[in-house]
């Protein structure tokens, strides 16, 4: 058991456990906290694969800004606990097993397909510089487009959430 494998199973297990908690917990704030744990575990998995800058961006932007937005909205809207209702019989006896089967099948197919080419490129030590060069040279047009997308999103959110004077 190499260190990589141990860390993968530990943090992959944490991610799956938190995702299951996201579904099973009833208060939206607890689900939000579970999602933050998933994102943090995924950031560690990115670090394991050598994508260090993406891991940092995931924590700073995704877990540190987008989820803060979610948490704010949940707090402002005073979201309450969901009531515990039992699943309908169709859901319980048909839906859940089919969902589990489908997920397992998807995972198996994906695993089988990519085991066919097991090539694993060696990790670089400094990923930020080539990443930045690629982002600002080959992909500069989509980059500028995303800044416009963000501007439109800001305007949209402002207009939608404005209180009528």
């Amino acid at each position, binding site marked *: 058991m190499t260190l*990589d*494998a141990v860390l*993968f199973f530990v943090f*992959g297990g944490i*991610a*799956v456990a938190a*995702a299951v908690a*996201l*579904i099973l917990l009833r208060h*939206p704030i607890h*689900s939000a906290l579970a*999602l933050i744990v*998933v*994102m943090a575990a*995924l950031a560690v*998995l*990115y670090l*394991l*694969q050598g*994508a260090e800058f*993406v891991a940092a*961006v*995931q924590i700073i*932007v*995704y877990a540190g*800004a987008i989820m803060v*937005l*979610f948490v704010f*909205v949940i707090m*402002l809207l005073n*979201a309450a606990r*969901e009531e515990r209702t039992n699943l309908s019989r169709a859901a319980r006896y048909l*839906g859940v097993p089919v*969902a589990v089967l*489908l*997920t397992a099948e*998807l*995972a198996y197919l*994906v*695993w*089988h*397909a*990519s085991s066919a080419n*097991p*090539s*694993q490129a*060696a*990790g670089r030590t400094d990923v930020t510089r*080539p990443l930045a060069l690629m*982002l600002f040279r080959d*992909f500069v047009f*989509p980059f500028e487009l*995303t800044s416009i*997308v*963000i501007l*439109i*999103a800001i305007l*949209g*959110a402002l207009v*939608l959430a404005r209180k009528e004077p």
Partner: protein
Amino acid sequence: MPASWYLALSAILFGLGVVGFVFKRNIITIFMSIELMLNAVNLALVAFSRQLGELQGQVFVFFVIVVAAAEAAVGLAIILLIARNRQSLNVEDVDLLKL
């Protein structure tokens, strides 16, 4: 760790996101399941980027994160409006086009 393990984990997380999307009744929790699905896709992209030795997978992850941010902002604004209009965050109360 071969990339297939990471892809299997990504598939499991994606499946859990779909389950959350279908079974939960609070709008915000449904939205969070969508974010979980996007995260699973990001993991798959990084795994492929590592397997092929190219950096384009990581660049695409940036764009996914940015688009998720924009979508979260607008989506939460819409959720705020729905909450103001229907006084409820239950999806089952938002099933008529008429107010």
